């Protein structure tokens, strides 16, 4: 299926403009640049992790126009004109987001590698469903793999965060 290979310098860059955590950015990108690489390497927002790089693990999850996506499987040019929320955008005025506070309080992590993606999937879940059942929480983070915790404390943290957010 392979065709004549192009060299990177033969390919015109594409101008994109997008909002990340409320801030506007305008950059020229190579068409093949992935959103996760754009976030990490162009914007130096390294909170979004690259885990499996094969659309499996969910460590790279961010919100694009309000929906959770795996940023290793989105081109930066596809996000043109969009609004991106990364883990760096969760805290407000130096205060941890209730999800971040609950993950800390309930020890919802061990090595922490999957945590940014877990937080973003949990955020997307609670936006849509402020009072999820345990089963709905499991479904909500079905696309995020944690190899340390066995998920138990992650469920506890999301439940606690949901309760805290409902009180606000």
């Amino acid at each position, binding site marked *: 299926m392979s065709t004549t290979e192009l060299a990177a310098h033969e390919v015109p860059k594409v101008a994109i403009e997008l909002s990340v955590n409320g801030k506007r950015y305008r950059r020229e990108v190579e068409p*093949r640049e*992935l959103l996760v690489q754009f976030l990490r390497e162009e914007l130096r927002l390294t909170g979004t992790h690259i885990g499996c790089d094969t659309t499996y693990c969910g460590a790279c999850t961010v919100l694009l126009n309000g929906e959770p996506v795996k940023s290793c499987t989105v081109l930066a040019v596809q996000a043109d004109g969009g609004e991106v929320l990364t883990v760096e955008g969760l805290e407000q005025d130096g205060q941890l987001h209730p999800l971040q506070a609950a993950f800390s309080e309930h020890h919802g992590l061990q090595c922490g590698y999957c945590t940014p993606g877990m937080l973003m999937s949990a955020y997307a879940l609670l936006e849509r469903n402020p009072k999820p059942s345990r089963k709905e929480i499991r479904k909500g983070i079905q696309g995020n793999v944690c190899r340390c915790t066995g998920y138990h404390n992650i469920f506890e943290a999301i439940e606690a965060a949901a309760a805290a957010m409902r009180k606000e």
Partner: protein
Amino acid sequence: MYPAPFRYHRAESVAEAIGMLSELGEGARALAGGQSLLVLLKIRFDEPTDLVDLARIPGLDAIEQRDGEVRIGALATHARIARSEIAAAIPIVRDCANGIADNQVRSRGTIGGNLCSGDPSCDWPALLTTLDAQVHCEGPAGKRSLPVDGFVEDLYATALQEGEIVTGVSFALPGPGSAGAYVGFKRCAPAYPTTSVGVQLTLSGADCVDARIALGSSGLTPIHATAAEAELRGQTLGEAVIRRAAEAAVAASDPIDDQRGSPAFKRRLIDTLVRRGIDVARRRCAGEQVEVSHEYY
């Protein structure tokens, strides 16, 4: 992992997309949500010279029901289909839309892309075969509609001609006494199914007036299990009839040996899933609310 370099073009209309794809020729690929294509590009399974992005074409993502027909635009995402009134009204559509991969992939992946990737592990081709859907295409030679059965011709090969794209799919709204189920088994949420099965039954009491059965991830293309349907049609649904239908579906399958399991394992799964699909479809025909989707550990 970076894909190999390619040029990027954004189509603003169907006509512009067809023009771009025709002009750019065989090195060009159409991009919708990218959840199948980008995965292949990253491992350099394919190295196109040009991508034509269809995602911004207005009007291609509509999900509508009119005059007894359901029409779903090619750019409708799995997530939007799962949340649609169509999915609420037709449980087999919800089973499939909710069963594909995980939340993140369903946010981006589209029904058109799923169909056009030609990947035998994709679920929409099998689901649409179960519903006897039509695929609506537009290309340099104009518009045409094809039955979905046979649209995926071979591994990663579809009936699309050069410059042609899928604009949507349509199928008849299942009538009274007709209901279906789409069930699959996968190793974990993001994984492709090990196998999946769609069953649509039209019943009069316990008598099967009509049946459609299709298999996904059970060979190099989606499989329309016509011999299994023939075992059910005109019969009273009992244990022996259902067993023969399951055996006929297994006989129609041709599962490959891969990391998801051996052919023998997959055949056992197909047998189980056909029985489960018939059971759920039958209960839904009787008005029972049954929630199913892909199962995983």
